[in-house]
C-alpha cells in the first residue's frame, strides 16, 4: 500500500508539472520546432531582451497585478473586519453576496463589466473608456472576494477578548486594530494578497473584454498570435515567469516553516 501511495504521488506530480517542463525544455531548443529537440541554445533568451514590445506588456501586466492586489487586499481586509462584527443573519447575507462573483463564470463577469463600462463611458462622455482604469477596476473586482474569504477565518480564530482588553487598557479603536488585530490576522492577509496577485497576473478572459486601445496585457497579446506559430521567445517569457513565481512561493514557505519551528522551540 505504501508503495502504491508513493507511485500515486509521483504520478500526480508528473501530471501537474509535465506541461510546464515541456515548455521549459523547448525554450532552450535551437530551432523553432516543438517536437524535436535539436540542440541547446540561449539565443531565445537573448532575443527576448531585444523585444521591448513584449517586455512593456509584461510590465503592464505586473503593474496591474501589483496595484490590483494591494487595493483589493486593503479593501478586502476592511470588509472582512466589518463583516465579522455583523449579526449572524446580515453576515451570512453579505457573505453570499460577496461570494457570488467568485462562482460566476469569468465570461459572464467579463461581458457584464464591459457593458457597464461602455454605459458609464457614454454617460460620462468618455470615448476611450477602455484602458488602464477599466482593467484595474475589473481586476480589483474579481480579486476582492478571494481576499475576504482568506482573511475572515483568521478573524474568527482570533480571541475576541484580546481587542477588548486592548480597549480597556486605553487603546483607541484604531490603535487596537493596528497593534492587536493586524498582527494576528496577517497570515490571512498575506495569503489573500498572494492569491489576488497570481489571479490578476494570469487572468485572460475578463481582461479580454475590458482592455482598450491604450493599455493591454501580456495574455491578450499572446492570445492574438494566430497568424504564425508561437515564437520560442514566448516560451522563454513563460519560463521566466514560472521560475520567478516558483522561487517566490518556495522562499515564502521556507520562511514560514522556519518561523513555526522556532515557535515550537520557544514553547
Amino acid at each position, binding site marked *: 500500500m505504501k508503495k502504491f501511495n508513493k507511485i500515486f504521488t509521483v504520478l500526480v506530480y508528473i501530471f501537474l508539472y509535465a506541461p510546464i517542463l515541456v515548455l521549459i525544455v523547448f525554450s532552450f531548443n535551437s*530551432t*523553432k*520546432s*516543438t*517536437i*524535436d529537440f535539436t540542440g541547446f541554445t540561449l539565443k531565445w533568451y537573448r*532575443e527576448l531582451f*531585444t*523585444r*521591448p*514590445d513584449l517586455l512593456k506588456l509584461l510590465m503592464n501586466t505586473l503593474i496591474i497585478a501589483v496595484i490590483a492586489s494591494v487595493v483589493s487586499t486593503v479593501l478586502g481586509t476592511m470588509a472582512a473586519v466589518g463583516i465579522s462584527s455583523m449579526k449572524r443573519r446580515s453576515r451570512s447575507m453579505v457573505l453570499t453576496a460577496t461570494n457570488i462573483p467568485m462562482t460566476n463564470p469569468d465570461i459572464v463577469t467579463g461581458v457584464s463589466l*464591459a*457593458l457597464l*463600462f*461602455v454605459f458609464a*463611458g*457614454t454617460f460620462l462622455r468618455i*470615448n*476611450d*473608456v*477602455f*484602458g*488602464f*482604469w*477599466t482593467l484595474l477596476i475589473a481586476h480589483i473586482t474579481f480579486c476582492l472576494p478571494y481576499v475576504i474569504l482568506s482573511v475572515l477565518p483568521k478573524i474568527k480564530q482570533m480571541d475576541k477578548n484580546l481587542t477588548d482588553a486592548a480597549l480597556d487598557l486605553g487603546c483607541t479603536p*484604531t490603535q487596537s486594530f493596528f497593534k492587536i488585530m493586524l498582527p494576528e490576522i496577517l497570515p490571512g492577509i498575506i495569503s489573500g494578497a498572494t492569491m489576488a496577485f497570481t489571479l490578476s497576473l494570469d487572468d485572460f478572459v475578463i481582461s479580454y473584454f475590458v*482592455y*482598450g*486601445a*491604450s*493599455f*493591454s496585457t501580456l495574455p*491578450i*497579446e*499572446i*492570445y*492574438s*498570435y*494566430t*497568424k*504564425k*506559430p508561437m*515564437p520560442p*521567445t514566448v516560451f522563454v517569457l513563460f519560463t521566466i515567469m514560472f521560475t520567478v513565481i516558483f522561487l517566490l512561493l518556495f522562499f515564502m514557505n521556507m520562511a514560514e516553516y522556519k518561523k513555526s519551528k522556532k515557535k515550537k522551540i520557544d514553547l
Partner: protein
Amino acid sequence: MKKVFAVLLMTVIVLTACAACSDPGTVTINVYNWGQYIGVGEEGTIDVIKEFEEKTGIRVNYTTYDSNESMYSKLEIGGSSYDVIFPSDYMVERLIENDMLEEINFDNIPNFQYVDDEFKNPAYDPTNAYSVPYTFGYVGIIYNTKYVTKPVDSWNALWDPDYSGKILMFDNPRDAFGIAQFLLGQDINTEDKSDYYACYQKLSEQKPLVQEYVMDQIFQQMENEEAWIAPYYAGDFLTMQETNENLAFAFPKEGYNYFVDAICIPKGCKNKEAAEAFINFICDPEISGKNCEAIGYSTPISAAKEYYEDTELASNPVAYPSKEVFERADMFTNLKDETLQYANELWLAVKSGTKVEEE
C-alpha cells in the same frame, strides 16, 4: 484617521488628473492590428512603430487582435476608439456595409501611387475609398516531394487515394468549400444552396482519405512528415520550408483563393490626419518591403521588393507568382448570413460524417 483619508483622496485625485494630462503637444493614434503582423525589430528586422514615431513625432498605442471577428466585435461594442485597423478583404466589405469606416483622404497618402494596379479598386472596396492594401497571400497545395512523386497541379491531388491517411484539410468551412468549388467549376462566391450541397458531397467523398482537419497544427504535421499533402497559405509554406526542404508548393490549375489584408480608418477615429500619415508611412516602398520581409507575407507594392535583404525571396514564385498564374486567383467576398449558416451546417455534417438531404 481623517488625515489618512485626506492623503488617500489626494493621491486618487492626482492619479486621475495625470491620466488625462498626457503631454498635449504630442498626437497619439491607436493602432489595432493582428498579433505578430508587423516588424518589431526581432532578429535584426525593422521596428516599424519605432521608426514611425521617430520620423513623425506621433505616438502610437499599439494593441493586437486574434481574428477579424473579434476586432469587429470590439469596434461594435464601443468604449474604445481606434485610428487604424487591419481587416481582411471580406471584413472590409462588411465594415463598409455597416457604415463603420471613414473615407480616406488620399491627398494625405501620396505613397498610394506605388500600390500595384491589380490591387487598386478591389472587389471588396470597388471605388477604393475606404482601404489601402497591406499584404496579400494565396492558398495553394503544400506537398512533400519525398512521398508525393506524381506531379501536383490540381486540387484533385487532395482526393488521391494513394495518399489516403496522409492528407490534411482546412478546418474552416469557407476555405474547405472554396477548394471544392474550384474543383466543381463553381463561382466561389455563389449564394446558390444547391452549389453548396454539391460541395458537401464532394467533401464527403474526401473525408475517408483525410488524416485530420487542421489549421495551425499543420506546421508540425508537414514539417515532421506525418502528413504528405495539404492545402494552406503560401506565406506559411515559406516558413515550413525553412524547417523541411522537401516541401513544395503548387498553384492548382482550377484556380485558387487569394486574400488581401487592408488598412482602414474606422468611424470614431480621433486623429484622422495622423492615421493617414501612418498609412502613408506603411505604403512607403522601403518600409513596406522591410516590413513584409519580416512578417513573411507578400507586399502589394512591387517597388518595395527592391528593399528585401533576401533577394531570393523577392523573386520567389511562391510569394510573387507570375502574371499568368495570378490570373487564376480569385477572392472571397462577404456572403449573406443565410448562406454562411447553410455552409456551416453542411461543413459540420462533412466532418462528423452524418448524411444530410438536399434542401
